[in-house]
């Protein structure tokens, strides 16, 4: 009986939370609003799309909701790391949320995204839940990779999110492989292979771009240029920091990555282009507030003034907030309340993730091989099925 009431109480709690969180900030209003992006697009060997973006109140509010959730999640991950619940490497995405939400608004779940290790928010954007995120970060078995991947290995196959990769630049050839498979199966989808300004100097990118251009693969290479490759500023690492021009024969587009609507416009444009003409490079001019990872304070190679300056002038959430307020889609108080709700939601998810179990020790040997064609490594007598690799 006590268990029944406890369970029903649990059932009611998230329901009420979700109702209160979304009650203020959902609308089914789809009257088009035309907004100008902050900056015009710059094109390389291509005619850039127009600065005016069509959006709707529904979309703007969803942008705000998603970005607020992402921001809150990253900050919570920060405190969890400092509390030693998250170990190893933790690369945070706050400041760059606009890239993820803008891209999601322009594409479907059938299009593939592949990125490097700064993948928490992109995972959320692709449909991952907070519980899966925090459980994976804390190494619990309810995580999206059963606790065996960690911060850098988030994947979601059913919504086309291919990770989550630790080695800088290695995901770009994989992304071109995804595009190859899309061309092979003739489904009209594209792949967004994301990488950073540091990875832009990897040779395998140029190799992959060459092959994609050669075979007209629907691959879109997205360089999230946050101007620092760990501690090295872009002007110290790249002779030509115009990453959108690096493709030479492949067209490129430079986008203000802190403006979600600009990102959306660029991604939509890129998708149409890639399906017809082959690869295109998008450079998202963005910024990360945290250091490269949690072990990097982020202030030894840049000034605090620079960080706070960008936070004041170009913060993606502030921009959307201003748009919402100027179009009277919600009041300031509603937005603040929503942020509080989000904070609560994230805290709840963390609490629930903390209660999740650690993976069983037998999980050490699962998923090493896929069962098929008898991958059973028998012991010496064939009686002992030593390390069955299921």
């Amino acid at each position, binding site marked *: 009986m006590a268990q029944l009431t406890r369970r029903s109480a649990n059932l009611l709690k998230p329901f009420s939370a979700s109702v209160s969180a979304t009650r203020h900030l959902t609308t089914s209003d789809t009257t088009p609003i035309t907004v100008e992006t902050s900056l015009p697009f710059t094109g390389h060997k291509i005619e850039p799309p127009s600065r005016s973006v069509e959006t709707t109140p529904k979309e703007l509010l969803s942008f705000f909701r998603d970005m607020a959730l992402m921001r809150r999640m990253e900050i919570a991950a920060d405190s969890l790391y400092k509390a030693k619940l998250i170990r190893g490497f933790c690369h945070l995405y706050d400041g760059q949320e606009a890239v993820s939400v803008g891209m999601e608004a322009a594409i479907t779940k059938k299009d593939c995204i592949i990125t490097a290790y700064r993948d928490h928010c992109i995972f959320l954007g692709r449909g991952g839940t907070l519980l899966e995120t925090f459980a994976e970060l804390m190494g619990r078995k309810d995580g999206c990779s059963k606790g065996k991947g960690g911060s850098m290995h988030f994947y979601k196959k059913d919504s086309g999110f291919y990770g989550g990769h630790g080695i800088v630049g*290695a995901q770009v050839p994989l992304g071109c492989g995804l595009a190859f*498979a899309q061309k092979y199966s003739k489904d009209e989808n594209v792949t967004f292979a994301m990488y950073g300004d540091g990875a832009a100097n990897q040779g395998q990118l140029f*190799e992959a771009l060459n092959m994609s251009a050669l075979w007209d693969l629907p691959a879109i290479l997205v360089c999230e240029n946050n101007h620092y490759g760990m501690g090295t500023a872009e002007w110290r690492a790249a002779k030509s920091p115009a990453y959108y021009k690096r493709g030479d024969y492949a067209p490129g587009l430079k986008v203000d990555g802190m403006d979600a609507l600009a990102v959306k416009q660029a991604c939509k444009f890129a998708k149409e282009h890639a399906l017809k003409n082959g690869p295109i490079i998008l450079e998202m001019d963005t910024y990360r507030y945290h250091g490269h990872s949690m072990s990097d304070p982020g202030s030894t190679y840049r000034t605090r003034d620079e960080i706070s300056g960008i936070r004041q002038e170009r913060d993606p959430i502030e921009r959307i907030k201003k748009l919402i307020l100027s179009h009277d889609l919600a009041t300031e108080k509603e937005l603040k309340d929503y942020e509080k709700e989000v904070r609560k939601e994230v805290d709840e998810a963390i609490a629930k993730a903390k209660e999740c179990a650690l993976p069983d020790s037998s999980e050490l040997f699962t998923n090493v091989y896929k069962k098929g*064609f008898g991958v059973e490594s028998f012991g010496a007598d*064939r009686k002992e099925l030593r390390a069955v690799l299921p």
Partner: protein
Amino acid sequence: MWLCSPLIHSYSSTSLSSRHRPNRHNPPPSPPPHPLTPPPRSSFSVKVACLIDLSSNLEVHCIERKTSFFFIHCDGSLTSGLNLRNSRSARLSTNAVATKQDNVTASTASKPGVTNVDETPPSKPIGNILEALREGLEEEMERDPRVCVMGEDVGHYGGSYKVTKGLATKYGDLRVLDTPIAENSFTGMAIGAAMTGLRPIVEGMNMGFLLLAFNQISNNCGMLHYTSGGQFKIPIVIRGPGGVGRQLGAEHSQRLESYFQSIPGIQMVACSTPYNAKGLMKAAIRSDNPVILFEHVLLYNLKERIPDEEYVLNLEEAEMVRPGEHVTILTYSRMRYHVMQAAKTLVNKGYDPEVIDIRSLKPFDLYTIGNSVKKTHRVVIVEECMRTGGIGASLTASINENFHDYLDAPIVCLSSQDVPTPYAGTLEEWTVVQPAQIVAAVEQLCR
């Protein structure tokens, strides 16, 4: 029905832990065998029958041939000395002799033990490893539209070693893809394509070039299934010729088995005959795990009869090449032929080596190897890998760990020297293990 020699008797006996085994000095307990006469027509007919009996000082009664040998088992099955049908495999298999002599003993049997050479001549022409690989590849591409090939010059050129000849005209440019010289990224592309469900086969023009793709093979290919918690599988096959060729130089004579063997999540197999090349190729393509198939540059033109029927071999099984009593010789790829050459000399000198082609380099088939060790109690490993950290080194450790009690002497591991392969022919010959060294090692071990 038969007077089985003690040799055969102990082979088919189940008391494998018995430490007594006949050799030159201990006479066997049972009476010496008679030279065999051809059996009555009802069971099987053979044209040649030979029996090697060590106790009778090598009276080899050979009607038609002097250099090969056969064992007639107590249950009436015939096995040739060079290629024993692996009785554990339930699939159709052909016993074929990979030598230049007249192939009277080639037998296509639909059930093990019954051979009727006169009545069922094999209908398949003799093919070499290249053709075997191509057949396997083509059959799999026909069977599953998701199978595709990527590599340098595999398409229009037909493959640098002509393994993919004719496939591009048949299946199109996208399915047999000519890539630019960018191993790192086209291996990465193949892995990305595999994540979505395609089954690519990556050809390294020479295995050594795959070193450039090591990051992709190790991190993405081997580990993705694990780090994604089982969400993605990578059914990729990476293949290519490796090994020491004819004066190809240091960089083109590399043996990468040792570098790849520690990567968790991949499987490695090495083919050595046309029969197992085709079978392993098909098995590798059908496997849902990443498989690296090691071929050898010098073996591509080796001819053998390939069965007509479709067959797939087990990726984790070793092949018993020649059963024996005195010493277990474990080998793979090209060294198998050096070992068989040495085996001829050894047999003439009175030894009875058991030769096993381990085929599966990761994981090792410890069952077959273990049974052999329990029988012979001495092991020689002959490999082409380097001395330091090679496949032989791992195998030595594995056997020591598991079968220490059954060993009478330390394991002898003959491997290539730890030097870059020189260009000069004589020097190159001395970097790899030669049959004379194998004979000397066995003699030393069985002293």
